[in-house]
């Protein structure tokens, strides 16, 4: 009787482990399918500029149907692509361990926080300038995973946005040495 219950529990454990492994395997596939959608850029951070969205809010940038849309949780901001007068991309880097934990780690003993600051992730920046219906100039700055900003710019230009630096020029320009 006891042996039977032991077998049952081990079977449950095994099936649970298999289910967990399958779920873990499915997550990257799901993420890939999301990233593969044209005009959708997950993992974007709105540094500042969009009305109704907090500074440094992370979310998804979507470009399509003549609009740039940023969604962060339940909040959403739209900018018509035709009202965008300039789109500029750049490169930067940020601390791999950021946020509150990153700030707290600065006070870690024996220079632990300083050591962690050496681990950095490269990011792209996307800057847009646009006009509201009364002609007032607005600007917004986004940071995105490396290699995605140029794609976002191309999609925006295709949707009707304007730029002072064409996408081809930005791609061929020599990489600026940034500290």
């Amino acid at each position, binding site marked *: 009787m006891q042996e039977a219950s032991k077998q049952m529990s081990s079977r449950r454990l095994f099936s649970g482990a298999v289910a967990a492994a399958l779920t873990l395997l499915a997550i990257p596939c799901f993420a890939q399918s999301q990233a593969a959608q044209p005009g959708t850029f997950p993992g974007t951070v709105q540094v*500042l500029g969009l009305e109704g969205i907090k500074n440094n809010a992370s979310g998804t940038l979507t470009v399509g149907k003549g609009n740039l849309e940023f969604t962060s949780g339940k909040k959403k901001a739209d900018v018509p692509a035709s009202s965008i007068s300039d789109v500029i991309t*750049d490169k930067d880097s*940020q601390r791999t361990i950021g946020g509150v934990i990153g700030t707290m780690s600065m006070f870690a003993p024996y220079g632990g926080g300083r050591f962690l600051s*050496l681990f950095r992730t490269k990011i792209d920046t996307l*800057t847009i300038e646009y006009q*509201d219906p*009364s002609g007032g*100039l607005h*600007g917004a*700055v986004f940071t995105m995973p490396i290699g995605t900003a140029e794609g976002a710019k191309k999609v925006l230009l295709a949707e009707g946005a304007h730029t002072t630096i064409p996408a081809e020029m930005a791609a061929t320009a020599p990489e600026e040495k940034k500290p």
Partner: protein
Amino acid sequence: MTRTRIACSLLFAIVAPFFLANTGLAQDKAPFKTNASSIQILLVDSKEVTLPAEFQVSLYENLVAQVQKSGKFQHVYRDGDRNATDAQDLIVLHSTVHGFKMGSEEKRQVTTVAGETSINIHCQITDKAGKSLLEQDVTGKVRFLGGNLRATYDFAKKVAQIVSQPS
């Protein structure tokens, strides 16, 4: 007792200027007072110095946000806003970048003393007709905590302090 008092006052006299030097108030040459009910903030001009686009946009957006936050003006108009032409009591804020030193967040975090980012901007406030009411240089800096764009926030806070002096 008297010696202690003298020593304390001497110490205060030596230390106080260092602390004041870091505040926006220390940069004021003369307090700017205005009764204007509206202000128009123009995009930061960076023809003399090459300024990355994200800095230019960040300077402008932080300026608008900080001046709005000060609550001094009933209307804060953006660059190009057509409604500003009808505003009666309007002053205009022009900003021109004179100096820009791109620091490094990594250097600041690792060394504490190196990697400062600073932006030196000449600010001019004019009335609607273009008559200059105030001209002043303001510097935005980030020395330790925060990304490079934090220098733009520092600058905007100082400018908001200057324009929102009680009349």
